[in-house]
């Protein structure tokens, strides 16, 4: 939920009128740009205490709410 809230607040500026399913691609739907990804990484690191390595910076880890949640779970379990 926190991830979803961050995305709605930071990239949609509170506009939750459109559906935001867990598997929605953030890039292909123009929700984030290259700067936005870094904002997202910064949020994930600060809020969840995980370190996002450069090698982690791939769409497979971060391009949808579901992927971000899974990624954080994997990192925290490691």
């Amino acid at each position, binding site marked *: 939920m926190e991830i979803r809230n961050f995305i709605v607040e930071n990239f949609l500026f509170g506009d939750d*009128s459109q559906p935001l399913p867990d598997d929605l691609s953030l890039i292909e739907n123009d929700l984030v740009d290259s700067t936005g*990804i870094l904002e997202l990484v910064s949020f994930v690191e600060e809020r969840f205490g995980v370190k996002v390595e450069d090698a982690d*910076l791939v769409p497979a880890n971060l391009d949808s709410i579901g992927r971000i949640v899974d990624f954080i779970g994997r990192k925290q379990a490691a």
Partner: protein
Amino acid sequence: MCGIAGYFGKSVAPTEAATLLARMAGALYYRGPDDSGIHIERDTGLAHRRLAIVGLSDGQQPMASAEGSLVISYNGEIFNYVELRAALIAKGRQFRTHSDTEVILHLYDEMGPDCLSELNGDFAFALWDTKRQRMLLARDRMGVRPLFYTERAGTLFFASEIKALLTVPGIEAELDPIALDQIFTLWTPITPRTAFRNISELPPGHLMLIEDGRRTVRPWWRLQFPENGEEAQRPDAAEELRALLDDATRIRLRADVRVGSYLSGGLDSSLISALAARAAPDRLRTFSVTFDTEEHDESRWQAMMAETLGTEHSAAPCRAGDIARLFPDVVRHMERPVLRTAPAPLHMLSGLVHHSGLKVVLTGEGADELFAGYDIFREARLRRFCGRQPGSKIRPQLFRRLYPYLPGLKRQSPEYLAKFFRASADEIGDPLFSHRPRFRSTAAAKLFFSAELKAELADYDAAADLASQVPPEFSRWHPLHQAQYLETAFLLPGYILSAQGDRVMMANSIEGRFPFLDPRIVEFASHLPPDVKLRGLKEKHILKTVAKGLVPDTIIERPKQPYRAPDSQAFAGAPTAYLDEVLSRGALAKGGLFNPAAVEKLKSKVLHQESSSFRDDAAFVGILSTQLWQATFPAQTNDKRNTDGADGHGRRHQDGNTQFHSRELPVRG
């Protein structure tokens, strides 16, 4: 360079015609502070504000032909008027003045509207042909000089700027939502549409003829590229281009006043300044804008060029606060929302030229479009390169080299880079391939549109609208030429030459001249093979060859630095009073265009500089300029009958930091 206005139709009462024309021209005072005039004849009214540059003593307008059957109100310069005049004299024509205006009258008398193709210049004019009872409006090929029109009660009204039209009783300012969508996607409205509902722009290279009760608008010139693979192979292309540039610059120094040159520190203006310094009769004066932010400032290169050329150089230092202070006035001059603050420093620069006592400057505009200088051309080539091998981990890394000044790209993986730039094989057939990432990224700002505006726009697609307007042969052009067409036919006139060109130059009574946009160079450049312009990922290859020996190698070889200015940064340091006013919840709700809650969050984010995202910056500047536009051009306009020669728009707005200029004076009829 001047301002023109007028009407054609029966709805203007003869007793009101002079007052109306004076009021329309008065709104354009700054375009021509040297002189003014009007001409009234039955259903026709022409007005003129003059910035005297050629034929100082005998070039007054509107100008009639010797026998009085033709009358013209004309804005611009015909740079080949000397040759045209000589040819006309050889045919037995007699001239009463030394102006280029009279050359147009004679040439039209000889050739009719076909005379336009003989003109090498930047112009917009209205010509009344009494014998044929025909009104001709025409605009130059590239759209350097503006011309707007609208109709009321069966009468056509036209002017160099929309604010002159708004002085006509019954013509009201109302934002066109489609135009706003286009600006928030493409950066520019698609002509003939303007930001004002029911007010049109005569597109570049077009003419309007009104005769026999019919009005027709048609192109008299089109930008064309050769079929892919049929580009002209020219072994001596660099020498030919050098000769053309020499001549294009030489004839643009023609004036009865001193001509200066802008010097940005980049290749294009350096080359033009170098050619001008050789051809100018006096020591060349050069002008630059400097910034106190390292990422925007090019003063080191400007100083190097000025020293190399031995010019008398002046700089306008632009601080972030200057942009914020000037921005409302810049919006009033541009008459449209914009997504960048970049026009504001250029307003300062033309102010410096004005205060230096000059009226005319050369600039390097056009070279990036014609010789493939912009990053977007390299980006498109790289995206195709990546699209041909979608899984490559190596190819997308080249995007970082393309945009070394974008911090957001440095850490990105090849997978992300490929996704950001949409470098996939299935997009290659898109006619807007080159510009699609820019359009999509820009359009993200439409997130802030209000629910009502979104509902009104429904499924309107600005990019699809643009795609529907490219010529049929577009698909047979080389991909680079397709991209160049999109830049040159739309963005160049719609933004660069207007918002960053004519409007902020004329705001300070300065005429810009653009040697690269000489029709001979446009024709030459468009027919060159693509790799002569963009060689690999190296931009402007042929221009760099031409510049050798004229411009220091350091300037030629330095990485291209796009002209940019601080955007939201300009407002973050010391927010101006008007910012809170026009971006207040109340003002946003009243305007009805944007979602107030979302804008409040955006404003907080950018003013606290929590993000350096281009996207947030573009949205912020776009929303701010739209709100300023609404404040400047309110839907219920002022009492026009009491303005008496001043345009009456925007002058009542003031706050602690900004007072809209009020230099307009009543005109002499």
